[in-house]
């Protein structure tokens, strides 16, 4: 069903607030925002599913630009059209604009401050655990056959141990999907077959 323009702007505004929060609490960039995205966009607002979030991450990995921002643009566009794309993107960017400008103006040695270093070390340890918890949930919801499980494990090994380019992994995944997952019926009805 098509949303009216007023409904879209209302939803877009809600997305601005959510993505502002995501931008404000993402330390270390990129994938560190996954746990937050999952909470806000899947659990709280149902703007997307875990499966679609993975699709968007894979796309964001091989399109230019910053993954966190691309994800915001994509979800915004999908849920609330152009207003959603604009406001979700501005939302994820706004905290950086404010915080970085303040630091650049007042506290150039911010990163060297001792409490900042300690706080970051703590945050890093927690974020690592949160990322692993998210990966576990995603794996449970979308790895349901031996080939998928093997693909995920091999992708992990190649990137983590051998430093393979993530873009190469995404293209390999797409190719394997095209070759081997075409004949399947388990992901719902395919009426065009």
């Amino acid at each position, binding site marked *: 069903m098509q949303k009216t323009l007023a409904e879209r702007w209302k939803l877009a505004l809600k997305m601005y607030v959510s993505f502002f929060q995501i*931008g404000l*609490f*993402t*330390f270390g*960039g990129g*994938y560190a925002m996954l746990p*937050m995205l999952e*909470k806000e966009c899947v659990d709280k607002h149902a703007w997307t599913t875990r499966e679609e979030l993975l699709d968007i*991450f894979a*796309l964001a*990995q091989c399109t230019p*630009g*910053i*993954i966190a921002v691309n994800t915001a*643009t994509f979800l915004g*566009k999908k849920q609330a059209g152009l207003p959603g*794309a604009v406001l979700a993107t501005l939302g994820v*960017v706004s*905290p*950086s*604009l404010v*915080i*970085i*400008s303040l630091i650049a103006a007042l506290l150039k040695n*911010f990163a*060297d401050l001792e409490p900042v270093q*300690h*706080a*970051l*070390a*703590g*945050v*890093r*340890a*927690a*974020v*690592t*655990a*949160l990322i*692993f918890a998210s990966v576990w949930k*995603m794996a449970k919801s*979308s790895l349901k056959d031996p*080939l998928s*499980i093997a*693909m995920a*494990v091999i992708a*992990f*090994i190649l*990137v983590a*141990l*051998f430093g393979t380019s993530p873009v190469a992994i*995404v293209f*390999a*995944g797409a*190719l*394997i*999907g*095209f070759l081997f*997952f075409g004949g399947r019926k388990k992901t719902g009805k395919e009426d*065009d077959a």
Partner: protein
Amino acid sequence: MSTLLLLCLNFFKTGLLAVGGGLATLPFITDMSNAHPDWFTKADIANMVAVSESTPGPIGINMATYVGYHMFSIPGAILTTVSLVLPSFIIIVILAGIMDKYSENRIVKAVFAGLRPAAIGLIAAAGFSVFLIALFPGYSGSTVFDMSGITALFSRKSLVLFALVMVATQLPKLKDLHPVAYIAIAAVVGIVFRF
């Protein structure tokens, strides 16, 4: 051409060509400094990276904002950031429209069925690299076979906190706690226990 316009063009180019996010913007910013030594120095860049990594927000955005503010104050910060985001914004908006149209297509479905396991592997690998940095603060290599920085002490405190959060996220009562709560608590723990 005015410097501000040239700066915006440079960031637009970076947004268009930097694939993979995060520190993918760094080589472009280094290039800018080489081409325009009067804009900012290598030492400025090192400081920008440190600030970008220790503040919330996507690192690429933080870098753009910092450079823009450094050169033209608030208007500079806003314009460089918008310039960086604009190319991917346009591409993603078009792509999202196309995907909406063909999401029921059999081939598209098959391709995405292959992308998901790949994406899970990638995210797990990203988690693993954060894990190495968090638990071995001296670690600086890019893969586990590159152990040059491992001489620095392994952080026991970080391991304990990591394990606690790991367990907490699996407990029925704490499972639904917002990630923001964990991050805020971890920051306080880090300061109090001097991580």
